[in-house]
């Protein structure tokens, strides 16, 4: 008996020792970086200006030529484009000092900046530009969504600081496409793998941007510090720490505690939390200009929806303003036009379709959809006016909007069936045209308006397919192709005006609301400005008051 007890005690002691050793070993790591206002490290270096922000997922591999898991804002801190996209769609020199476009719109010659160095001190020149283009063009199918890649014929080094790009056909948004965060940004020589194929990975993230990745712990944090070799105006703050916090409510609590200085992005905190932080008066909250439009896509190949009057009835039959206030709590703005007016070529005069249920009923009566007495759903030739709206079941806003529309349209005699789907199934059905009504979003700056008109004309995204029942579809496609290839600015504006006017009148894409980015920051953060490019980081010029 005594022997057993001894043995038991011994084994318990051994287990406790083992477990505590493991635990001690695990906890003896360096503590995760905390916000700028509390750590001992910061009191040592009093003058250091640092900002801590949260991001929902790990920043990824920081490969400039590939997509997930790399996060756009972080890629844009390290890598720079030839041309930068600024407010109102203005294109400004970045790594290219200037550029010329040949008269036929096919040859683009870039004069590169001469004082640019990568963060490792190596020189930025036409040869490295070409090497990056070559790496991207090794996998054209990966980038086939991007217009410039599809029309790119060849690239050449003219001299050390002149780079030329030749297109197979004129394509005016080529420059806009080059301003994107990926895939055409520039990795330094040291980052290239031996075979030059960056799609499989890079050696290290070496860029020309204002920041460099100084410390990184996957799924926990990333620390960016100033690039000492930066050619432009150096950032005003010394350090940016990105903490990976996947949960939205935790982000808010960490911010309230002061562990975070800034929460930025789209849908990164709940609408309730945003309004609550705003009302507390203790922090600064801001909403950006519209970055995209939340719309409904009506499938005009459907017999019922091929009638313009039915589409107009649907658009005037629901209250966008109430939906924006009730569902998005004012964080989105009622949309009257398919594209908001802060994009290039979109500031045109078009007639919005206002909320008017009487008018909606009149449209339906006129189209022959009558309400039989004693029934709630309109009928025509014995067929009920019944439609299906598909939505992403994991998106609470889509769900709430779908339910609201179901209620509102039933008041005008339209029966709406709503079906929640997996995102991939929703996309599949959209592409196959297997839907009556679907939610749809445009791409935002700098993709729009050219990417938007492109998907209206080109099949494969579901939008051209859904619009193919429009009587003037061929004419519309013709205009779109002309606009994308046009080299004359005035002509291009005319074409855009006509295209957008037609789409607005046809009501096959029904704008609901403009989506905005949100930011919440501690009052010590100053000079915050939303980037014009939806995917760029917002740290240009940002500062903190000491």
């Amino acid at each position, binding site marked *: 008996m005594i022997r057993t007890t001894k043995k038991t005690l011994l084994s318990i002691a051994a287990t406790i020792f083992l477990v505590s050793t493991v635990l001690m070993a695990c906890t003896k790591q360096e503590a995760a970086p905390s916000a700028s206002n509390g750590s001992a490290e910061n009191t040592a270096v009093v003058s250091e200006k640092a900002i801590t922000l949260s991001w929902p997922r790990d920043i990824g591999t920081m490969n400039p030529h590939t997509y997930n898991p790399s996060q756009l804002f972080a890629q844009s801190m390290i890598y720079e484009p030839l041309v930068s996209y600024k407010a109102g769609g203005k294109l400004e020199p970045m790594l290219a000092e200037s550029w010329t476009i040949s008269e036929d719109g096919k040859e683009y010659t870039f004069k590169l900046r001469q004082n640019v160095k990568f963060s490792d001190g190596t020189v930025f020149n036409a040869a490295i530009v070409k090497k990056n283009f070559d790496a991207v063009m090794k996998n054209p199918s990966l980038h086939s969504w991007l217009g410039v890649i599809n029309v790119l014929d060849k690239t050449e080094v003219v001299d050390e600081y002149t780079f030329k790009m030749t297109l197979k056909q004129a394509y005016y948004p080529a420059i806009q496409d080059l301003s994107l965060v990926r895939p055409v940004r520039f990795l330094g020589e040291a980052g290239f793998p031996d075979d030059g194929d960056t799609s499989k990975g890079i050696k290290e993230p070496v860029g020309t941007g204002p920041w460099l990745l100084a410390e990184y712990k996957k799924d926990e944090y990333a620390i960016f510090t100033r690039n000492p070799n930066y050619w432009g105006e150096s950032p005003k703050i010394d350090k940016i720490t990105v903490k990976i916090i996947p949960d939205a409510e935790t982000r808010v609590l960490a911010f309230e505690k002061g562990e975070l200085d800034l929460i930025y992005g789209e849908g990164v905190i709940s609408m309730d939390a945003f309004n609550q932080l705003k009302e507390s008066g203790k922090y600064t909250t801001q909403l950006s200009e519209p970055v995209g439009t939340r719309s409904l896509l009506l499938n005009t190949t459907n017999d019922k929806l091929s009638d313009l009057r039915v589409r107009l009835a649907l658009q005037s039959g629901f209250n966008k303003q109430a939906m924006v206030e009730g569902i998005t709590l004012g964080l989105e703005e009622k949309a009257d036009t398919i594209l908001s007016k802060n994009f290039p070529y979109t500031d045109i005069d078009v007639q919005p379709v206002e909320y008017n249920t009487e008018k909606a009923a009149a449209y339906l009566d006129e189209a022959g959809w009558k309400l039989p007495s004693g029934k709630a759903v309109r009928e025509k030739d014995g067929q009920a006016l019944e439609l299906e709206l598909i939505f992403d079941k994991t998106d609470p806003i889509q769900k709430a909007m779908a339910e609201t529309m179901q209620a509102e349209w039933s008041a005008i005699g339209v029966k709406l069936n709503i079906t929640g789907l997996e995102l991939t199934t929703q996309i599949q059905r959209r592409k196959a045209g297997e839907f009556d009504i679907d939610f749809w979003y445009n791409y935002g700056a700098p993709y729009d308006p050219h990417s938007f008109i492109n998907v209206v004309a080109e099949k494969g*995204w579901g939008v051209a397919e859904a619009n193919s029942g429009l009587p003037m579809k061929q004419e519309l496609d013709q205009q779109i192709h002309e606009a994308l290839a046009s080299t004359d600015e005035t002509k291009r504006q005319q074409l855009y005006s006509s295209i957008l006017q037609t789409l607005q009148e046809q009501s096959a894409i029904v704008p609901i609301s403009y989506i905005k980015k949100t930011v919440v920051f501690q009052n010590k953060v100053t000079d915050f400005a939303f980037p014009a490019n939806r995917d760029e980081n917002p740290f240009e010029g940002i500062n903190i008051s000491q």
Partner: protein
Amino acid sequence: MVSYIGKRLLAILPIVLFAILITFVLIHVSPVDPAEAYLTAAHIHPTEELLAEKRHEFGLDQPLLVQYWRTVVKMAQLDFGQSYMTNEPVWEDVVSKMPATVQLAVSSILFAMLVSIPLGFLSAIYKNSLIDYFSRGLSYFGASIPQFWLGYLLMFFFAVKLDLLPVEGKGSWEHLVLPTLTLSLALIAIYTRLLRASVLEQLQESYVLYAKTRGIKQRIIMVKHVLKIAFSPVITGLGMNFGKLLTGTIIVEQVFSWPGFGRYFVDAIFNRDIPVIQCYVFLAACLFIICNLIVDLVQLYMDPRISLKGRTDQ
């Protein structure tokens, strides 16, 4: 003993094969096309050519039986393919995230034991006393409160209001406190009640009465005899919960930004990251079986009345 363990380990095979089969069937029954899911997760526009390329790469153009056989063979080599989200081999991802999850699971179990053993024992001995009422209240609270909510509440009071601990993250021991408390409360609720009931049952046994008549001190009867036997159901619970903790710290890891693999699986589910989901099911099956086996062995050691023969016959 060795042959018993060998037999139990062999029994893992059919169970795991069955688990793989179920996952395989569910994935093929689901309307989500893995090639489409991959491209959506990778933020790449799914053109027809790319889809065909990916389907071929994933072997989705092969007959179902061939696909199943390939999946089994690969899993046997711990090759779960690449995650759609991270583009890294799934097994490497899991191995790198495992220590954080194990750390959290072990600390929660230890803390739960530390609280529930004395609490359960005392509330049985002092039945219907203040301590019993307290343990009952705590158990109701722990069993019924949703973990994510408890996590937020603890965060709000201890991190934001009282400023004693960090809100989230991993690093120092302070970071471990709130997630451990959140996870262990539910365990404390179960173990305390389990131990209390078990001790009360043992107290009715005749050996307790005989021990008393032999003049053995009450304290010795309780600690050396009653507690030792009464502990058996708690060990069973512990084994079950350890497996559950290793696979189920999902919510707590998400809430506290704990970089374990629970969070990795949440992301996988939201993004239809099929290789990761397959790996999860496989791991969960293996872990549960292994934990059960360990529990059986420990019980065998603690209570010699449970015979090996009886076990294997069952």
